[in-house]
């Protein structure tokens, strides 16, 4: 896995450095990853807006000193677990009720990869 940040903190640091100027291409890439149909005009609009948001969040980096460890949770809890015990499941009718389409008790989804047969 060459090229990927080696820790989550580096990843966020990496992101922080990129934040200062989010480009149209960045927005287009993220929109693609999120499967959002974004128009050409929206690319410019969102690039500007995201820039402001990210720059605001980046202020955290200005006050974060070396003695403050990166935090992912507001409360210092660990090891919240449950025993290996079976609980109730939903009825499959209820499960499929919200599905856009169902067939044979399964969720029916469009063809997954857009590749020729």
């Amino acid at each position, binding site marked *: 896995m060459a090229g990927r940040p080696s820790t989550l903190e580096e990843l966020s640091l990496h992101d922080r450095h990129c934040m200062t100027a989010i480009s149209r291409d960045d927005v287009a890439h993220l929109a693609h990853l999120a499967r959002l149909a974004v128009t050409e005009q929206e690319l410019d609009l969102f690039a500007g807006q995201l820039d402001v948001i990210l720059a605001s969040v980046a202020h955290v980096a200005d006050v974060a000193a070396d003695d403050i460890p990166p935090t992912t949770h507001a409360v210092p809890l660990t090891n919240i677990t449950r025993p*290996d015990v079976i609980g109730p499941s939903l009825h499959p009718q209820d499960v499929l009720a919200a599905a856009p389409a169902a067939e044979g008790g399964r969720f029916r989804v469009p063809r997954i990869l857009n590749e020729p047969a």
Partner: protein
Amino acid sequence: MTATAEITVTDVVARYVPVIGLETHVELGTLSKMFCGCPTEFGAEPNTQTCPVCLGLPGALPVVNVKSIESTIRIGLALNCTIASWCRFARKNYFYPDMPKDFQISQYDEPLCTDGYLDVMVDGEPFRVEIERVHLEEDTGKSLHVGGATGRIHGADHSLVDYNRAGIPLVEIVTKPIAGTGVRAPAVARAYVTELRELLRGLNVSDVRMEQGSMRCDVNTSLAPKGAAAWGTRTETKNVNSLRSVERAVRSEMIRQSQVLDDGGRIVQETRHFHEDSSSTTSGRSKEEATDYRYFPEPDLVPVAPDPAWVEQLRAALPDAPSVLRSRRQAELGLSDDEMSWLANTGALQLFAETVAAGASAADARKWWLGDLTRRANAEDIELAELAITPAQVASLVGLVADGRINDRLARQVLDGVLAGEGDPEQVVAARGLAVLSDTAALDAAVDAAIADNPDIVAKIQSGKVAAVGVLLGSVMKATRGQADAASVRAMIAQRLGVEL
């Protein structure tokens, strides 16, 4: 394909250095799922084992199944890994309908277990496979691709998804790159997966059934020209789901890559699909397209910090390593080193041991598993474990022979019946009327007829050419449809002709 058949792995390693790597996914045998109480039973009606948590419905909150942590730590300890004192789960984001949440909870840069090793035997020599990491994640749902020619993803019109499997705890065991194998690369891959499966079975953390998908392998293969400073570009062959296929996938990728390189081509880093029928791989989606998973720490779960005292407790309670168990078992079963390693490498040791446990002698178990059953498995090109016969049925067959109810020849017909799905040996014997002939009158008549029909043979025997008795024996066996006991027939002929046979 014709060119492929001409090249062997020996030819490949004369010019190239292979490096392989294995990623093995193992579904843990917990009662309930990783983050919710849904049951994990295999084969339930679709979408009957799901709830708001594993369906990712809004507001649902995952809570870690403590047993899955325990099992993962035990696997790590058995693989000589370091257990993390503190680690987090991460969200792996991707759009693919096998996860209803649009992400999978996994571990990224903080796996529970790191830096271990597993020693395996390859061609009678020890080989150490180093382990990079063992981490815990949740399994995905199961997609059925409809409209494609073979149920595969390519060419499908649409897919049907069952989320029963989504959220079952899944352990991923990743090796470090395995170099230095040379021509043994396919055998090392197989030996590693075989040994790993034994180890996991011994830990009782999973049923490790490759055919049901509770253990699945991805095989990485690369080739570099001899003397090259760097390793070659690797491909990842997905879902290689039998021990034999692991070996074949490495072999076929080595041969394919060597042909591409020989022709001056370049290996593309990609996912490839393994085809059981042709033992070959074809290109899947290109790897580069799918790597942007935007991992981040899972906000719904707090970190896991295993208490060192608990870890030590788990370490102290680990069962004996498979190699230790094997030595003990080898002595108990009276197997030679060759037989033992053959049974272990074909994954048939368990079948063998269960046959003995079901009442057969080690000698009889050896006779059937290493004899007839091996021949039949080879003839059909399948593993011993894939034969449609259970250890209990083999033991029952052995018992029928020992009781004198059938002879070896009839036993082979009984095997035919069992393998054809006609039931247990007792049922096959009854249904096919295969019992050894116990009706003395019928046997007497058959022997008398054989003697009366072959006066020249009788004369030969009486003049001292006793080997000719085979003709009479054959005649009696034919008349009794093989159901007579050969030793009794021989004695009856000897008595009637007044000769020693």
